[in-house]
């Protein structure tokens, strides 16, 4: 029995341990928004968030996710989804769950990604070739991202090192 938190809810999944996370979600929990593409971790259609990180789940044994927090497209609530409609990104839509999961993770990490950031992150394949609109969608979503919370007040601890380092660099 594998224990997972999926989209905020605790689940126990009774499958063989080598079952890829993708199929455990699709076939055991009925979460079919995530798609099967290549089956060898190349195309990214199967991307989910595992503890906040985008992972390709068609090759990830569910046992490797035991105890983890999983977010699927069904649990995604992110400005990038609205931007995807604003920019009319999808065509057939089959790869877009995976594209959105990566794009959301990118924007959560880098609030204003450059085209280079986008190229480095967005390696999912799209047979309709919506790549230009994916790029536009990410930039549009960037403008919609909520202001990051102010950083917590640093605990002041006077070690004296800060001054010393500052002087050393100059």
């Amino acid at each position, binding site marked *: 029995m594998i224990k997972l938190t999926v989209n905020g809810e605790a689940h126990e999944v009774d499958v063989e341990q080598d*079952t890829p996370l993708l199929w455990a979600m699709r076939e055991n929990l009925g979460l079919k928004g*995530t*798609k099967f593409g290549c089956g060898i971790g190349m195309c990214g259609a199967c991307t989910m968030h595992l503890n906040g990180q985008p992972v390709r789940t068609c090759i990830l044994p569910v046992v490797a996710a035991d105890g983890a927090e999983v977010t699927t*497209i*069904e649990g995604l609530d992110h400005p990038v989804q609205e931007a995807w409609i604003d920019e009319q990104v*999808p065509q057939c*839509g089959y790869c877009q*769950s995976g594209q959105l999961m990566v794009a959301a993770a990118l924007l959560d990490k880098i609030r204003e990604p450059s085209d280079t950031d986008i190229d480095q992150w967005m390696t999912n394949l799209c047979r309709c070739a919506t790549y230009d609109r994916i790029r536009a969608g990410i930039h549009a979503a960037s403008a919609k991202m909520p202001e990051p919370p102010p950083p917590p007040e640093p605990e002041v601890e006077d070690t004296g090192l800060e001054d010393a380092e500052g002087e050393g660099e100059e």
Partner: protein
Amino acid sequence: MINLSRRAMLGSSAGLVLAFSLPGCGHTLPAIDDTINLGDVLAEGEVANLNAWLRIAPNGVTTIRMGASEMGQGVFTSLPMLLAEELDADWSLVRAESAPANKAYRRPNVDYPGEAQGTGGSLSVRGYWNPLREAGAKARAMLVEAASIRFGVEASACSISKGVVTAGEQSATFGELASDAALLSPPSKVSLKKKSERSLMGTSPARLDLPPKVDGSAIFGIDVDMPDLLIATIKSCPHHGGTLVSFDDTKAREVPGVEDVFQVDEAVVVVADTFWHAKKALGLVEIVWDAGKWADLDDAKIGAMLNEAIGDGKTVWKTGKVGETDIEATYEVP
């Protein structure tokens, strides 16, 4: 063209439908499968069964059933536009959904064997061009007639804009008129708008199929489920013209959920309870192939064979003047 069964259905239900038959389509349709949910198609208080392209809910949501498949080419937007233009609908209330399999929804300008709901050849808009526009115009006429009766005026005194019928001081929405209109007979002949009279066609509205494609709710073929559905996976000879010599399915049959492993032509098939079990088991079938006479065929060899067949070739197109610089390029298809 109202039939008794539809009257009975309308009488027995709280919801409202606007129904009409197309010529030659006077048969009963199967119940609509409401698992295909595009946005808020199933609005409150609505009954979903009728016998053609269109239904209008009390809240004005206008749902158009599409015989063509939306595969990213945009027909779930372009085809509803054809109908909505002639209907003078409020586009913001228009929804599209897949029609059930029925010849009422066939593409009329293509001779498939038998009668098929096919999508292909870049022919959806051309094929549904007249049926959908006529469907919209006929529905519009029925709504106008219903309004004229309600308002006590001539139909010619009514005008429609964005799903609202107006005559003088009186007005009613499509949603308010739909139940009355559904009991009227559609006109046998309607005139369609001239190009200069169109306001929706020729524009580029947002696609109707996108909302379910950004939240994971869109249903693709792989997502379809049925009670006791089994999944088959198949592996055919990786060489063109090759054959299956033998296979050992001992390990494959040890995978839980596997129902059967068998040969079909030059391929091995596994049937199991889930996709994963069928996929995993197929990978465990030990197969001996005879690659056949094309075993060593690759792109380079195919290219060489094609070039040899072409020989010196021939000039198929010549235009312009030859300048001082020669530009040479080779294009290959496929």
